[in-house]
């Protein structure tokens, strides 16, 4: 049974992606018998390229994906180069990790309410610094070239990339490398950049690619922060797909293939950039310069990350204020009155979405956890080296959602499976399982093999050793991985919307649906709820091991 686990997991992740891609590829060339498309034609492409503003949509998707990833990576790398493990650095780091748990939509709403012309920032600065007695008529949120979208993406990508780096760093023994370089006379931040980063980058390349793929095709954040006329490519595809005119589905499929092309082009561009940087930096690495720029890096690294973190925290703080705001005149920094009305009005109608969010998230997490643990357990029992087929697990993270989810709906429909809750769980599994694997595998492999050897030598069977030794020792990392997976599930917008056919409302779909309505106070309530749920998950993941091992001192250090 156990031996089948890796194949099962990979099949579960790769087959839907494959089926989804196939079922956008066929309709993109006019073939979809269910909708009367029996012949191959280029018509879908012709109507796609006749869409006004398509070029602009593509450009914004491409550029916002690449630039936001680049900025996030620069912020993270500069911070790590500058970071010396002082209390300030540790503090910033600790503030960043919870940000990872906050769903994209919630961050997007928070940012929008912060920087909009009538947002918190403008209120704090007015009328004193700006002289504004009423909000200026500026288009900040939904700006035409996607600057705000990029800012929102950076806010979410920085914590992700930082945590990926922090997870990969220990195996490189960065302290030793930096110490050695410093003993050769290098300034600390230059020492880190020259001796640690070149070894670190290959380890975080896959997460970086996942970020690019996500950022070039994100839907929920783009609906909230991105340009509107035209919207980004992925948002356009969604509206074509949902168009009552079913013929538009052919064009939507062509759009999805185009989206895949745009994402691949962005990845290729990044890869070319990598090669250039590698070439160019060869000389810099060994040119012997020991401190040029080190002060700028030390200052800039901390400043950039602190700014990012502060921005994200104020965004969430802004949501809190809006959610309890009563009457609020424009330049006033704070509302004149506070009220719980919005919460009271909204909460009763949220029972179903809340229940859906939790049931889908828990189901996907449980299935994914069982599968991932089975795969890892098989790996250690067979003493397999980390297998090369591993990268297949990341396929759903590298192929943009907007490229294959539409096809997945078509594929399910073609075998007479209507959108429903089970499909939503299955679709969430695609994105939850890779993250669960990503966050658990290191801890699983790193557990001292002698624990299990002692158990076996004492006569414990493999399963007894698994339940009574390995699982308890790995309780903390396992719960953390489950919390990550739950957070990923809670934040999913497109899979929930499409595979649920709009009939499985979650907190996230409800929040994004409100985006165009514009009642900030109600949106704030929803966004906060959306941010709160993952937070509860992470708190439990921290709390349960502490309670379970209250009397076991060493268990607080094992994980």
């Amino acid at each position, binding site marked *: 049974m156990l031996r089948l686990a890796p194949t099962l997991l990979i099949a579960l992740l790769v087959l839907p992606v494959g089926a989804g891609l196939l079922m956008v590829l066929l309709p993109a060339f006019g073939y979809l018998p269910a909708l009367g498309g029996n012949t191959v034609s280029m018509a879908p492409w012709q109507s796609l390229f006749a869409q006004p503003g398509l070029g602009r949509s593509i450009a914004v998707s491409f550029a916002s994906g690449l630039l936001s990833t680049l900025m996030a990576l620069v912020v993270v790398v500069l911070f790590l180069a500058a970071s010396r493990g002082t209390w300030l650095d540790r503090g910033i780091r600790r503030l960043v990790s919870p940000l990872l748990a906050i769903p994209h939509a919630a961050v997007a709403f928070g940012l929008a309410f912060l920087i909009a012309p009538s947002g918190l920032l403008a209120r704090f600065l007015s009328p004193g610094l700006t002289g504004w007695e009423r909000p200026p008529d500026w288009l900040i949120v939904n700006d035409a070239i996607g600057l705000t979208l990029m800012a929102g993406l950076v806010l979410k990508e920085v914590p992700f990339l930082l945590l990926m780096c922090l997870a990969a760093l220990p195996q490189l023994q960065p302290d030793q490398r930096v110490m050695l370089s410093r003993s050769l006379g290098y300034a600390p931040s230059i020492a880190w950049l020259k001796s640690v980063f070149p070894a670190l980058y290959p380890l975080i390349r896959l997460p970086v690619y996942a970020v690019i793929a996500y950022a070039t095709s994100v839907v929920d954040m783009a609906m909230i922060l991105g340009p509107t006329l035209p919207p980004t490519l992925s948002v356009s595809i969604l509206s074509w797909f949902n168009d009552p005119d079913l013929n538009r589905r052919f064009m939507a499929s062509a759009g999805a293939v185009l989206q895949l092309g745009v994402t691949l082009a962005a990845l290729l561009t990044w890869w070319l950039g990598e090669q250039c940087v590698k070439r160019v930096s060869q000389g810099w690495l060994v040119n012997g310069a020991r401190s040029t720029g080190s002060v700028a890096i030390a200052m800039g690294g901390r400043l950039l990350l602190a700014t990012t973190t502060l921005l994200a925290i104020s965004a969430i703080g802004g949501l809190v204020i809006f959610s309890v705001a009563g009457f609020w005149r424009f330049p006033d920094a704070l509302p004149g009155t506070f009220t719980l009305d919005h919460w009271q009005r909204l909460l009763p109608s949220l029972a179903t979405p809340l229940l859906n969010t939790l049931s889908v998230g828990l189901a996907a997490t449980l299935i994914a956890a069982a599968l991932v643990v089975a795969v890892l357990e098989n790996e250690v029992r067979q003493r397999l080296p980390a297998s090369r087929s591993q990268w297949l697990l990341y396929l759903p993270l590298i192929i943009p959602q907007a490229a294959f989810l539409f096809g997945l709906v078509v594929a399910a429909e073609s075998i007479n499976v209507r959108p429903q809750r089970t499909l939503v769980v299955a679709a969430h599994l695609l994105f939850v399982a890779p993250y669960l694997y990503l966050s658990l595998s290191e801890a699983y492999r790193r557990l001292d093999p002698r624990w299990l050897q002692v158990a*076996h*030598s004492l006569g414990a069977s493999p399963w007894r050793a698994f339940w009574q030794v390995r699982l308890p020792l790995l309780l903390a990392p396992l719960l953390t991985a489950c919390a990550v997976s739950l957070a990923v599930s809670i934040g999913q917008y497109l899979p929930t919307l499409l595979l649920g056919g709009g009939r499985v409302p979650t907190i996230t779909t409800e929040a994004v649906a409100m985006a165009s309505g514009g009642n900030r106070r109600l949106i704030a309530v929803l966004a906060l709820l959306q941010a709160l749920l993952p937070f509860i998950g992470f708190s439990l993941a921290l709390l349960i091991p502490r309670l379970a091992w209250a009397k076991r*001192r060493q268990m607080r250090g094992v994980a």
Partner: protein
Amino acid sequence: MTLNPTLHIQQVQITLNGERLLAIDRTIAPGEVLTVMGPSGSGKSTLLAYLAGFISPAFKAQGQIFLADTRLDTLPAEKRRLGLLFQDPLLFPHLSVGGNLHFGIPQHTANKQPKVAQALHQVGLAGYEERDPATLSGGQQARVALMRLLLSQPHAVLLDEPFSKLDMALRQEMRSLVFRQLRDAGLPALLVTHDHADADAAGGPIIELG
């Protein structure tokens, strides 16, 4: 307890990438300690891993291990009933001291509770059942690990430099405790070490590897 079986290591050869790492052909009588010595890299830990059933698939091993008439090298590790003592005591950090001892006792043993109490009493730790292993001193942990091994009723014992991490004074004390207990239990034992004092205290035959 003189009914214990003899451990036969018959013409065992371990190779890595086609190169012979070690060859050994020995018999260990009940109550006897065979000491295997050699510098690091000589393959003595590999020999131990092979006997215990944890050898990495990168190594190729041939030969046979018998405990009396039972062939061991074809059995999985948990069925071999070879007790292991490592450098570190490796008490399970999520279990109490008593829980660790209970973990070792075969499932259908009568009077587990008194056996655990008796074992703790024997090494001067009476009443320590509920303690967190992390609160014990290094020497106390080593003694609990020894009793956990003996309670699991092994048919033979493998020792992987079990004293090397103890400080000098404690080392002498643990040596005599371990070897006395093994002799009293009449267990065949194989000790891997690079410390001649260990070999002297074991008092058995010595093989030099490498």
